[in-house]
């Protein structure tokens, strides 16, 4: 064999070997993909194992997803109008979006939180905050609709919200953007000392879920960012992170990143309760809105409250302490046993794990390192239990699997790290795509996590899906955490920025879901419970149409007698009493959204016609084979005309009832 031949043979062998390696790698990748696909595959007609509730961020809503499939099941309108069903457009639900600043059709939702009993999600309610105009909402998990919204006075940027105590005694709210409290006109560069924050506690009625503002603690003008409440031994406490302890008012990017440590505010809410009992508070009168939905009347109500109890820490010693924590922390998380408190310092690669017992000891022994505006600062070393060293870049938020491990999201290095709560030892890392914010494990911030999956809630999407122009949906990733190594299973897009999320086993709430509104129990003042009760009533320039909808007709479907200058109220009751037969209602030219009316429900569309003519209305939700025929007309006559006031429908004809 000559040298040339040997070279050729060697080269061929090398090519073959390389090809073999490549094919092998591809085979392995394919097998992994098949493995992952099987784990997230939910066969047609089958159900997901978990309900997940993802914040809709700047979309102002909550998205309900199934896990492990990542299928979007529903979008719940919360702080934003929902054109899909008329929420926030119709007079029944507009009061839900009232504030002390008037009607606001939008907000920015961040942190959903499930109600808990003994530190475990109980499937009753989901709470979520509005960051922009400070509010908190309660969603009823039987109807999966927003039941109540309460505004937070004396605050701005309601970010460390809405986190519950172990038995949902309270819900937190707080001030991310400190402001003059009470609000007043002062130059912005007089921030230091004049701008303040509040940490608010909302009482939850254990039977009805009804929210009321219990007390607010006035705190220095830092940026209070996130919160979590204690469990077990730390039951009486809630923890709030803060950044900008520098009290900068401009170019915060640099000016609020000067110090090595900021603070966790540890609030003893039991102590606050004592101070309220002992009268150690001030009554302030900043107005705030309180809105709730009455399920029987199918209608929301809004009231302005003008009284709140404000606790000043110097008048209630022991109510709040500051724990120094590295650096500009975002999340503050408590281990399932309630023994450890962690500040996720987003500008520090080393995370500090604090011990609750050590904190109590330091308080007792007065191991203070000075104070901030009279609030004691605990000595860092006395409270520190251990570090998580060289954790990652930009740690943001941590949840638990219930098996002793913590999982931290790392924004800058785009990864999730797994580590041991008790020692800080890092045992695994997995890259995520891209720039993860929060992460979520079902029950992962509770006393008993269902540690099967982890959802990475990523901020940046880029090339993960087919491109859709400059604006992209956000991206979530499902990770299997049952083994020693984390395994990426699935990407799925989410609507709006899912800052944070919650999940619970579907079995906890699936069978409690409402299917219809019982027509017999419908107490809407304009309900029409059978076609016999249909009528049209004129009261001056108001026209009330008591209308029914059933497959596939409206009664009435001809209305004559409306004049320009009238306000027409179409009160439509869906007479169906079987599951999933909604009817929609829309009127040509009406400057509002359609109403989607569930079986047994009544909703109103308000219309002020401006031009004479004949205007069609129709059912917007495909309801039957004769859905296309589900239509009608309303005739609008000039203001000075004298048209007959009649209606037709259901084979009948009627005359209007004229009142006054």
């Amino acid at each position: 064999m000559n040298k040339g031949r040997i070279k050729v043979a060697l080269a061929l062998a090398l090519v073959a070997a390389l090809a073999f390696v490549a094919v092998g790698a591809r085979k392995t990748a394919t097998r992994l993909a098949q493995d992952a696909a099987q784990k997230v595959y939910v066969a047609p007609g089958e159900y997901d194992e978990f309900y997940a509730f993802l914040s809709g961020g700047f979309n102002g809503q909550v998205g309900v997803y199934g896990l492990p499939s990542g299928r979007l099941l529903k979008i719940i309108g919360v702080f934003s109008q929902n054109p899909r069903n008329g929420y926030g457009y119709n007079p029944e639900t507009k009061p839900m979006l009232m504030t002390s600043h008037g009607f606001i059709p939008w907000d920015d939702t961040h942190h959903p939180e499930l109600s808990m009993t003994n530190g475990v999600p109980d499937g009753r309610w989901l709470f979520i905050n509005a960051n922009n105009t400070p509010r908190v909402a309660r969603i009823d998990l039987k109807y999966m609709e927003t039941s109540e919204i309460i505004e937070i006075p004396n605050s701005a940027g309601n970010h460390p919200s809405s986190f519950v105590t172990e038995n949902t005694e309270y819900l937190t709210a707080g001030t991310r953007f400190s402001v003059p409290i009470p609000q007043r006109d002062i130059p912005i560069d007089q921030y230091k000392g004049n701008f303040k924050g509040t940490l608010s506690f909302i009482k939850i009625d254990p039977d009805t879920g009804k929210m009321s503002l219990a007390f607010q603690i006035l705190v220095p003008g830092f940026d209070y960012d996130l919160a979590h409440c204690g469990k077990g031994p730390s039951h009486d406490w809630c923890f709030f992170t803060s950044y900008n302890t520098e009290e900068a008012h401009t170019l915060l990017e640099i000016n609020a990143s000067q110090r090595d440590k900021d603070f966790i505010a540890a609030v003893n809410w039991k102590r606050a309760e004592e101070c309220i009992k002992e009268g150690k508070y001030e009554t302030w009168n900043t107005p705030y809105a309180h809105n709730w939905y009455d399920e029987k009347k199918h209608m929301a109500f809004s009231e302005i409250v003008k009284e709140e109890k404000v606790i000043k820490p110097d008048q209630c010693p022991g109510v709040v302490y500051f724990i120094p924590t590295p650096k500009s922390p975002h999340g503050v998380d408590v281990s399932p046993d309630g023994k450890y408190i962690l500040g996720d310092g987003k500008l520090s690669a080393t995370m500090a794990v604090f011990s609750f017992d050590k904190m109590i000891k330091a308080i007792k022994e007065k191991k203070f390192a000075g104070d901030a505006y009279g609030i004691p600062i605990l000595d860092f070393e006395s409270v520190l239990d251990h570090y998580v060293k060289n954790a990652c870049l930009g740690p943001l938020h941590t949840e638990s699997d219930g098996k002793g491990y913590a999982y931290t999201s790392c924004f800058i290095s785009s990864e999730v790290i797994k580590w041991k709560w008790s020692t800080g030892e890092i045992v695994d890392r997995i890259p995520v795509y891209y720039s993860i914010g929060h992460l979520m494990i079902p029950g992962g911030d509770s006393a008993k996590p269902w540690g099967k999956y982890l959802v990475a809630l990523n901020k940046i999407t880029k090339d993960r899906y087919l491109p859709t122009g400059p604006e992209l949906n956000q991206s979530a990733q499902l990770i299997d955490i049952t083994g020693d190594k984390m395994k990426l299973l699935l990407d799925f897009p989410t609507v709006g920025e899912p800052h944070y999320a919650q999940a619970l086993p579907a079995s906890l709430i699936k069978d409690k879901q409402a299917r219809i509104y019982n027509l017999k129990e419908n107490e809407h003042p304009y309900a029409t419970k059978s076609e016999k009760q249909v009528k049209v009533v004129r009261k001056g320039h108001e026209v009330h149409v008591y209308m029914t909808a059933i497959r596939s007709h409206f009664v009435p479907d001809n209305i004559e007698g409306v004049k320009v200058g009238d306000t027409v109220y179409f009160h439509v009751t869906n007479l169906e009493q079987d599951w999933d037969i909604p009817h929609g209602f829309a009127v040509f030219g009406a400057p509002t959204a359609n109403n989607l009316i569930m079986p047994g429900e009544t909703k109103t569309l308000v219309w002020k016609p401006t031009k004479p003519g004949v205007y069609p209305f129709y059912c917007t939700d495909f309801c039957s084979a004769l859905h296309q025929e589900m239509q009608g007309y309303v005739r609008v006559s000039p203001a000075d005309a004298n048209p007959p006031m009649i209606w037709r429908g259901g084979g009948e004809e009627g005359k209007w009832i004229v009142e006054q």
Partner: protein
Amino acid sequence: MRWIKALLLAAGLAFAIGEGASALATQTKCQVEAKLPPKGLPKGIGPYADKTIKLDPCVNLDLAKKGEKLFEQYCSACHKITKRYVGPPLKGVTLARSPEWIMNLFLNTEEMVWNDPIAKALLQQYLTVMRPPSGVPEEDFRAIYEYLRYIDATGKTEVK
């Protein structure tokens, strides 16, 4: 599943006993004498497929009155008595169909409209699947049936 069957059986028995008792009480004279359907009509598919409902020769007026109200609430948006509406006109229905078939249609609608030959043909004609309200107790359907019997006996739609 077993307890559901037991419940259905119990309901069926109560039905039969009720019929028997009222038949005895009103043997002598009826306020309103019912018209009875011919024997041997199909019974349809459902809990009454293998049962026989003994019909009282008298219309139970209290029950029919209750049925009148329930009819307005649950049925009138889709059914008229003499005219076609969303569904077929109902005059004569208690003579054209067996009571078992009608109760099966109330209680087992989905299966009836897709598999029973008569209900299937009606669906092809009217093109809308009947949706009786969910969660209604069986005795309410029985009252509606009695109201329809009253209409067929008297030709009137208002029970007096």
